[in-house]
């Protein structure tokens, strides 16, 4: 077996220029895919963490049916105190949950006595909220991010339009679920930066203030956002939690809760999907390059070495051994391409990091592209290329092993 590989390696040296060409081709393909994947992954992770950590959380729980009418910020779709307690118990019992935050989402009007306009608000408990959406405090542009009673964090665009500053007095007016209108005076505690995606233009108040404004008694909750310890285990966590929540039924046997991952809540998920599709496409192109390249080289090799094949067949080499010899040659070419490609990929990926390439997302600029070497991606791509290299040499090798010795010996 070792001998077969030794011969294979020497045979690749024999057609040095051709081998070098195919090895470079494979290497370039590998580099392209590895760097592309590292870059898009870095971009994706960064954007996803921006979205989930700014406001969304990794997962969200609502009362069943809330999400379809989320645009109206319905107040008749809230979780009761007992239901909230059940949900909190489930979340506390799951070891994958890092933190959660209970929220009331509401729509209302904001007035500075000169102008009145619509506002959407998220009422929160800052301690829980800042753990669940850890980037939220950094979005407070002006003022204090330590939200206090009777304070409101006003969204950036709205503050600009109404010329609101920290310390200004405003009145928030909201309609409660019975239809009666109530107002309450607030101080602008800070201005909050706009973030892309749903909830990115919400103002923030305390839960207690929202309950007062909405005359809520007993207290209710419209949304629970969850932050996981390991975002990589999103699917596992989701499945476990979904199972637990689906067991909570109303009296007539319908589920109480609904649970969604960030992907169902943010339009960026479809962009992330598209990036994944592109990655798949790039991988398919790599497979095609390797397949066609290796097949071409191996077909040439078999053709040129027909007499040699005739000779080794004549002196008793078994067809399967001949097959193995040529497959080993294809594998060696693939392996050389993979090794060279991976080494250069690592260099390029770290090079890109040094370049400090920046991009903007939403209102924010200056995100730095920091691609990293993902051993799993590297192994998968390498395995694919090697498998395809072997597969590509299969047909030519098969042909070689089936040559008739007499005919092969006669060829020039």
């Amino acid at each position: 077996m070792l001998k077969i590989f030794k011969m294979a390696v020497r045979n690749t040296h024999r057609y040095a220029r051709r081998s070098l060409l195919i090895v470079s081709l494979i290497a370039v393909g590998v580099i392209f895919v590895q760097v592309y994947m590292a870059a898009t992954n870095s971009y994706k992770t960064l954007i996803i963490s921006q979205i989930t950590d700014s406001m969304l959380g990794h997962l969200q729980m609502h009362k069943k049916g809330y999400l379809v009418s989320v645009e109206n910020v319905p107040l008749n779709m809230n979780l009761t105190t007992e239901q909230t307690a059940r949900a909190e118990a489930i979340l506390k019992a799951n070891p994958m949950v890092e933190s959660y935050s209970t929220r009331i989402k509401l729509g209302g009007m904001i007035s500075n006595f000169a102008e009145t306009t619509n506002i959407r608000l998220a009422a929160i408990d800052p301690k829980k909220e800042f753990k669940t959406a850890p980037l939220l405090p950094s979005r407070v542009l002006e003022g204090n991010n330590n939200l206090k009673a009777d304070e409101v964090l006003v969204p950036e665009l709205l503050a600009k339009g109404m010329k609101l500053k920290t310390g200004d007095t405003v009145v928030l007016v909201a309609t409660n679920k019975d239809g009666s209108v109530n107002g309450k005076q607030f101080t602008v505690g800070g201005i909050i930066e706009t973030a892309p995606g749903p909830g990115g233009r919400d103002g923030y108040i305390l839960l207690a203030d929202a309950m007062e404004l909405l005359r809520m008694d007993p207290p209710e909750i419209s949304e629970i956002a969850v932050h996981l310890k390991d975002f990589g285990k999103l699917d596992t966590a989701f499945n476990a939690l979904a199972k637990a929540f689906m067991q909570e039924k109303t009296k007539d046997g319908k589920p109480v809760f609904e649970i969604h991952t960030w992907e169902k809540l943010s339009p960026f998920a479809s962009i992330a999907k598209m990036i994944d599709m592109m990655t798949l496409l790039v991988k398919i192109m790599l497979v095609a390059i390797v397949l066609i390249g290796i097949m071409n080289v191996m077909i040439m090799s078999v053709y040129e070495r027909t007499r040699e094949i005739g000779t080794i067949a004549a002196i008793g080499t078994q067809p399967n051994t001949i097959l193995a010899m040529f497959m080993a040659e294809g594998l060696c070419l693939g392996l050389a391409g993979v090794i060279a490609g991976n080494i250069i990929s690592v260099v390029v990926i770290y090079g890109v990091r040094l370049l400090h390439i920046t991009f903007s997302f939403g209102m924010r600029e200056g995100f730095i592209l920091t691609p990293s070497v993902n051993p799993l991606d590297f192994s998968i791509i390498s395995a694919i290329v090697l498998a395809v290299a072997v597969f590509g040499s299969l047909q030519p090798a098969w042909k070689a092993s089936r040559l008739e010795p007499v005919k092969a010996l006669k060829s020039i």
Partner: protein
Amino acid sequence: MSIISGKDLKKYYLAGETKVEALKGLNFTLDPGDFAAFVGPSGSGKTTLLSLIGCLDKPTGGVLEVCGTDVGKLDRKAGARFRGEHIGFVFQDFNLIPVLTVYENIEYPLMIVNPLPENERRKRIMALLEEVGMTDQQHKYPDQLSGGQKQRVAVARALVTRPKLVLADEPTANLDHKTAYMILELMKKMRAETGTTFIFSTHDQKIIGEAERIFTLEDGELTGTSRTGDNNNA
């Protein structure tokens, strides 16, 4: 007792629509240890006959037994195994494996075809290198050798598995007369030491005299056989 026997051995080729009768029913036997030559003009069927004996091709008709085996009945795998075990080949164009050194070329059959342990291989190869006078060239690659040297390596490769039979189709056609003669002497010497049966084909009148048995082929038919003593050397 014979090592090879052909009975009404026929081989036809189909060249398009026309049938070429390359061998038209040959009857012959060879004994172990024979040093025999097939002679005849171009196209008389020498290569065809050697391919059949060497189990590289199958007869169209008749029976051909080599080393007690009806070689017409062997399939591809069994044929390869049979060749590896019983037959050594020497080719007109030497056909050494270009990516292997002299030593490795001789080693190849013991490595890939009939595997032997390393120390045993080494002993056999070194002995053969000595016999063919190539010991000091053993690390060279085929393209660094002269034709005569290549053919000596080929003879060593053919003998390394200790076959019962060595087949050589025009082994000297690409060599000058003096070298050709030396190669035949070498083969004869090896025959004397190992008792291996050697069969070669040629249309070179000058070296025919080296053979002890001569089969004359003409147009696919055996037109004469003769036995000479080993006394007409130059």
